[in-house]
């Protein structure tokens, strides 16, 4: 009775969800920014989850990557917009810069992760995040606490029409792409040696080493991937889309908590989890803001606590156990 699950089937519902979101936003007027918000949460959840789901590390300072991504894009545009011949190239360079900054920080975090575990790791990452924020403000580089405001520069370099479309369509669209890419990479990793290696490391690192697994290498791969994706989201959803950056507005731990909420709502360590979690979180946040402005947090906080206590495995976890043994099982991961 050989039963090999077709490898990438679990991606189907994920991509389907993104496609539906995209189509809804694209065709129904007034929905675009809302689905962009949903995509933002899904993408963050998905990217964070690669990190957490595969290694078991809780990176409480994940927002550092998003912030550095934002800075990469902002620096690129601010300092290169004067070279007219670069055209749209400044965004490409900004994006590369975002990935570069994220790589530096990911390598630093990977370096800590190789030494610290659990709460110690979480706190160390918070330390990096806050340390970096106040260093930018204190040492006054990258615009210091004055931040960078570059919408004007962008308009000058690329023209008003292009910028309008970039900020309100393409920036959001790329978040969709990043979210889908994150899902694909997550799936790909899970199904490749990286996934097996990290499962082993997560369960018993010393035994894994004896099994021939270079734990540090695989952890670093997961960190880098997760960091890059976070930076990409930051570059697009915060940098390009909003046209400004203040250190105090981007190095905010609260966003990491949102990642965690998204992932936990959907199901930690699963592929579909962040999508479901992102949809639930984003939609309820949006509608609560519309229906009962001012009371979101009061409603949210007890709900989060109840979910943690009652269903720590999240929606997808519940779904998985419900569908166990049915034909649909192979689509849920």
């Amino acid at each position, binding site marked *: 009775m050989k039963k090999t699950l077709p490898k990438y089937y679990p991606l189907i519902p994920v991509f389907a969800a993104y496609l539906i979101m995209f189509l809804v936003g694209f065709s129904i*007027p*007034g929905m675009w920014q809302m689905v*962009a*918000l949903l995509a933002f949460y899904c993408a963050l959840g998905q990217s964070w989850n690669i990190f957490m789901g595969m290694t078991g590390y809780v990176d409480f300072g994940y927002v550092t990557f998003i912030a550095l991504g934002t800075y990469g894009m902002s620096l690129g545009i601010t300092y290169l917009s004067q070279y007219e011949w670069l055209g749209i190239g400044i965004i490409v360079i900004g994006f590369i810069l975002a990935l570069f900054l994220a790589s530096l920080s990911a390598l630093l975090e990977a370096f800590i992760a190789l030494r610290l575990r659990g709460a110690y790791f979480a706190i160390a990452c918070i330390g990096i995040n806050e340390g970096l924020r106040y260093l930018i403000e204190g040492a006054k580089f990258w615009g210091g606490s004055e931040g960078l*405001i570059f919408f004007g520069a962008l308009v000058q370099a690329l023209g008003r029409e292009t910028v309008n479309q970039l900020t309100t369509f393409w920036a959001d669209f790329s978040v969709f792409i990043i979210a889908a890419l994150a899902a694909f990479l997550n799936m790909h990793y899970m199904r490749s040696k990286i996934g097996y290696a990290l499962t082993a490391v997560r369960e018993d690192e010393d035994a894994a080493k004896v099994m021939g697994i270079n734990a540090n290498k695989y952890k670093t791969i997961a960190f880098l991937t997760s960091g890059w994706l976070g930076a990409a989201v930051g570059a697009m959803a915060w940098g390009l889309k909003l*046209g400004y950056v203040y250190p105090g507005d981007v190095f905010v731990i609260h966003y990491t908590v949102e990642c965690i909420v998204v992932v936990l709502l959907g199901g930690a360590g699963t592929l579909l989890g962040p999508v479901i979690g992102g949809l639930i979180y984003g939609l309820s946040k949006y509608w609560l803001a519309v229906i009962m402005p001012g009371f*979101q947090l009061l409603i949210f906080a007890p709900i989060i606590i109840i979910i943690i206590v009652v269903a720590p495995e999240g929606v997808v976890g519940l779904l998985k156990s419900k569908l166990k043994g049915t034909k649909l099982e192979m689509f849920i991961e």
Partner: protein
Amino acid sequence: MKKNYLRVLIFMTIFGLLFAANAFAAPPSKLVIGHPACLSGKYAKAGEQAIGGVKACIDWVNNVYGGILVGGKRVPLEYKYYDCESKKEGVTSLIERLITVDKVNVVFSAYSSGLTLAGAPVAERYSMLYMDHGGASDRIFQQGFQYIVQTIGPGSKYHVGTLSMIDHFDPEAKKVALAYEDSEFARMTMGGAEKHAKKLGKKIVFKRTYPKGVTDLTPLLSDMKARKPDIVVGGGHYEDGQLFARQMSDLDINVKALSLVASATLPAYYKALGGGIAEGVMGPSHWEYGVTFSPDGAMKVGLDWIGPGQDEFVSLFKKALGKDMIPDYHAAEAGAQVLAYVKAVENIGSVDQFKVRAALGKLKFMSFYGGWDVDDTGMQIGHSMVDMQWQNGKRVIVWPLEAATGNLIYPKPKF
């Protein structure tokens, strides 16, 4: 080429539907103000005030004024607001909803320069009039936004009047200390204050910023004490302003004048610090309860007048929030912004975004909030600030002299 085609397609779908809705609609039966307000999160306090101010002025327009005259008939104003949680993601999605789903005629920005900037690209994209009553940074208006108009005065003006006033009463007070919060707004204020102080021939003996969310200013203030300033100007937000005066008192730093932006002008300030510390502290304000702008005053300077009188505004504000709360300048700015919109629409008899924006550009008027006038970029230049001082638990306006409700107590009483 293919890319262009896609772009056109996107435009067609989104704008086509919108445009169709606007073009074939009958003259509007109501005008809607949309607002991604800050009801929770870090700007909740200012957000509540703004909502009260907007509601109060809409109440006045609908029930006292009789509606806006547009297309030959008077139509009511409506107010649609959501909670952005003081966060940038909330702002963008809610503004789009306001524009496309609720079909609002104008969007008011969220509080703070950052959130105002966050919403600007979406408003621009939909060619939607975007009125800023909470983002005081001058830099917002250097980005080439076409649909943004400011009601709040630019940050750089806040302490200019204060310094002029002290110079007027005591030209010998030369040593100025600047200590501001490290926020966009406060830095603007600091820049303006520094420039003006130099112009007045003052000597800057101390100039420092402190981060948002600071819990202890002792080291900074000790340093400041050592420079023996005559005048201290600074502040930034609410709690740091309280902390500032409290710890100056703890360290026995007695100066001739102390003026703090934002926090010092609020009733909560005196309540929190008590008379021993708050007495004599000053604060610049866009508007204070007690400022006497009146239709007569407006006529004297040749400006149109619109809107409720001061006491009327305060009672409408209390009614709107259902609380016995005195409005502060956040409420007044937001309220005055409603009046500016009404005035501009009536001046041209149209609700077309572009035309209204142009009309706002030309508009000059006066309300309970004071003068209103913007430059080409949309930046507010017509509004001047007042300076208030705590005297026996009351806020007394001490500058400009023509608006003053009492005399300046100078030098400030010792802590």
